[in-house]
């Protein structure tokens, strides 16, 4: 058997040129600017309770996930890989991390309640 370790990956058609790279850059920059501005101003109206935390925190998390999507799908090119590969990488993350977060945060809140009794 010959050594295949230096064979390149099969070519996947992505967008041509470099315009798409700068487009993703401006999106990431704009989202970060919005996050920082909201973090400094902390608008009173967004501090109301929502899904167990403040509405502002929910907005931060949604914006963070949007940034993560652009980095992974475009910069890391995962969005242009084969479907089976996309799911092999994302499915464990999508299942395990929310589960771990839910379990640990619930437990942490409960530990706090016990400690303050």
């Amino acid at each position, binding site marked *: 058997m010959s050594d295949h370790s230096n064979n390149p990956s099969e070519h996947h058609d992505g967008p041509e040129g470099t315009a798409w790279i700068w487009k993703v850059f401006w999106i990431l920059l704009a989202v970060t600017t919005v996050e920082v501005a909201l973090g400094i101003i902390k608008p009173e109206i967004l501090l109301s309770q929502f899904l167990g935390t403040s509405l502002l925190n929910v907005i931060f998390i949604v914006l963070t996930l949007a940034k*993560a999507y652009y980095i992974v799908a475009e910069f890391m090119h995962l969005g242009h890989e084969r479907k089976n590969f996309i799911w092999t990488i994302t499915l464990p993350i999508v299942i395990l991390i929310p589960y771990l977060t839910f379990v640990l945060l619930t437990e942490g809140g409960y530990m706090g309640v016990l400690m303050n009794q």
Partner: protein
Amino acid sequence: MANGAALEQNTSALWGGGRQPFGASYGKMMMWFFLLSDALTFSGFLTAMGLYRFKYEETWPIAENVFTHFPMLHGEHPLLFVALMTFILILSSVTMVLAVNAGHKNNHNGVVLWMGLTIVGGFMFLGSQAWEWYHFINGDKGAIQLENNAIVYLTKAGSEGKILSVYELVTGVEKPHGDHTEFSTGDVVSAFGLNTDVTLRYPGKAETTMTREEAVKAFQTAKLIQGASLRENEYGNVLFADFFFFVTGFHGTHVFSGVVLNIIIFINVLMGTYKQRGHYEMVEKVGLYWHFVDLVWVFVFTFFYLV
């Protein structure tokens, strides 16, 4: 038989190697699997911090009161410096994509230029992180640790909980920019006795202020804390400092190893290794690692500094 021959041919096509079931080369696929496991490691750290933050909600510092400095600027500028660090990392991610893009076109000079800039960006980020650590370790205004290990701040009565720096209490003048004078607990106790309008307040969300009588009583067993280490933290719960050092330190280690990998590949590019090989996929593989470092920072930024 014709059927048997066809079967044999198929078997060797399937098991003879050289096929890419995922359409990705061995190296690239393994880099992805490594990043998958690394993502789980980082989420373990961040959710562990979440657990303790939920447990000690009252004494957990608010990051915007902790990281308030910006080089050369006087006063408090929360979030500004981390925003700059984020910008540097995003920009170095962009130069990395441009390097990969140039590699696809076998544009040797393009790869050299953009990879070189990526390495510069990596060093800038590491320098910024060192600056951030330096200020966190040296501290800002100083705090008082009570007998039950709670951290409280000095404040003047009627100043709506505005933190009075230890420097200002002891010397009577406003703390100069970038000052890191160390005081003893005795200095603070005697200055506190003289300034009868000074009291103590709790940090965090509640910000309860003590009366002067309570503060005098609390001061009998007080200990001055300046800055943060793994054992004490002037900004609040010591676990915040532990997680700060651990998570940003682990991320910084990733950035550092990313820079080292980039330099190794950069040298290979300069020597023409990939020109000879006919493709620049190695640049793409370290590129994946470099973007991952950026990706982790996006989450560290949110869960340490914003939320």
